């Protein structure tokens, strides 16, 4: 990962984006009946923050990310990016899914090139595409097809595909959820390093309290569906953080009790 770190320092830095959820309520239709998923969410995220969203599964965390990405429009309320209402997707706000969802018919490099290609700047972006592949340590696998990659490599490729667009907001929907525990640790370090070196705003949905505490400088705990904000905790601990740090252990205990697990 030394190579990745130097590549990261070579990558352009961007200014993060300030994100506001104002009075967001949203519902799905399930068998014709409305199913409320979000109930009055108000959340201000400062530019450059790393915010983790914790909550029981199915509570609507991913919906919040889809709203911020512009893939869905809230039933009521408004999501603002730098003060402007979000009406659709934009490459400045990129979502990384739990599944890598690489296009199986494209090599790693061609997957990373999707963003520049979609915006018609793929010619100019050749060097940036290579840099992004390099950044996640996949230079040797640039020509490989997704089915030839391990789970961790596929997720790194998905991360490169997001980062090549210089996102000002990186939306991470449990991107490490399906990885084995060792790959997961390595990827956590990588996410943190990229966030520190590039400077985007990050919004991470996770089930893993420890992961949230190791990475984020703010943790939002959501209630059961329909989700409302139950706790909003600033994590003022310096990086790198240790899993057995007394502060982390205490916060982990507190958050688990908030979520209803007596730890």
């Amino acid at each position: 990962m030394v190579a990745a770190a130097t590549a990261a320092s070579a990558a352009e830095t961007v200014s993060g984006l300030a994100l506001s959820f104002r009075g967001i309520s949203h519902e799905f239709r399930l068998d014709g009946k409305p199913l409320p998923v979000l109930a009055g969410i108000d959340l201000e995220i400062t530019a450059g923050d790393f915010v983790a969203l914790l909550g029981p599964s199915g509570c609507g965390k991913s919906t919040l990310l889809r709203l911020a990405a512009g893939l869905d429009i809230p039933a009521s309320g408004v999501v603002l990016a730098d003060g402007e209402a979000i009406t659709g997707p934009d490459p400045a706000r990129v979502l990384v899914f739990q599944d890598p969802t690489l296009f199986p018919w494209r090599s790693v490099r061609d997957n990373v090139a999707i963003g520049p290609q979609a915006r018609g700047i793929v010619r100019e972006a050749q060097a940036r595409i290579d840099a992004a592949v390099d950044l996640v340590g996949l230079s040797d696998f640039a020509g490989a097809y997704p089915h030839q990659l391990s789970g961790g490599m596929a997720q790194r490729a998905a991360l490169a595909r997001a980062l090549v667009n210089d996102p000002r907001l990186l939306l991470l929907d449990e991107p490490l959820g399906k990885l084995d525990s060792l790959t997961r640790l390595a990827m956590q370090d990588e996410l943190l390093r990229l966030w520190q070196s590039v400077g985007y705003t990050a919004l991470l949905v996770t089930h893993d309290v420890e992961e949230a505490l190791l990475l984020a400088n703010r943790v939002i705990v959501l209630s059961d569906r329909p989700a409302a904000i139950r706790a909003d905790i600033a994590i003022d601990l310096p990086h790198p953080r240790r899993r057995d740090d007394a502060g982390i252990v205490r916060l982990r205990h507190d958050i688990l009790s908030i979520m209803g697990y007596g730890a």
Partner: protein
Amino acid sequence: MSSVTENARSDGYGSAVNARQLWWPGFYAAAAWVLAAAITIGLPDVVPWGSANIFAGLLVGGAGIFALLGFGIDRLGRARDPIAWYGPWAIALGIWFALWELITAKLGWMPKPFFSPPHGLLHVYIVDWERILICIAYTARLWSIGFFSGIAVGFVIGVCLGWSKSFSYWGMPVLKLIGPVPASAWIPATFFLFPTTFQASIFLVALASGIPVAILTASGVGQVNRAYYDVARTLGADSRFLVLRVAIPAALPNVFVGLFMGLYYSFAVLVVAEMLGAKYGLGWYLQFQTAYSAYANVYAMLIIMALLCSGLVKLLFVVRDRVLDWQKGVVQW
């Protein structure tokens, strides 16, 4: 597969252990082919079929090649194993030629106008090659215009049906209604609807090949993982990108299933259409020669059709394996 190879090896058909070893199947094949040649020229035909000497000459030539292979197949390097694999086939073919000669031309056991000895078929190629070539050219023209226009239209319609809700609302019921109708059922109608039988035949071939492509393309585009669209949209893709760069590549495996079906249907309707109103063509040739009880010509043409059709199928497999290279492994897992 491997167990077959193992058995073959224990019978002596497989790889040689050392370079000086003889490849016995080559000699057995040579013997069988010489036997067939001896029967062909040694015994008299019950009725003359022609070209017996040329056929015998070809058999002896083949036998010579197999005998040479028997001595020196190990010098062929990488080509050795694929050739050795067909050793049993070479032997069986020689025996089959010998039996075929016996029961048709030599003993006359098979009813006479209907069954031709192998040298009778060879005689057809030697005498009638010009007309056969013209027929192949006519059929190739009809098939290629019909097939390629059919799959092109079918593909475009399939993409529209799979992509657009309103197109699907109006088009899908129509396609589902007419899709299962065999293309040959349209023959009576099309021969009135089109000014020439050639145009009618093109339409029939296009219909036969286009409908499965349209149906499979539509279902392929409709089944594309929604997450791919989400990914592309967050990365700045417009609808054009979503159709051309996401929906179509993702649907290609289905499209190829449709292409294979369309290819088979196109052969079926092609020959029927040619039998009904063509001046030349493979189907016409079969019809024409049957009317004259020239069954040797019919069999000779059937062999050519088998080679052409299986060649086209093989070609489509090659194209598919190239285009869907990325699928390797995806399918197996």
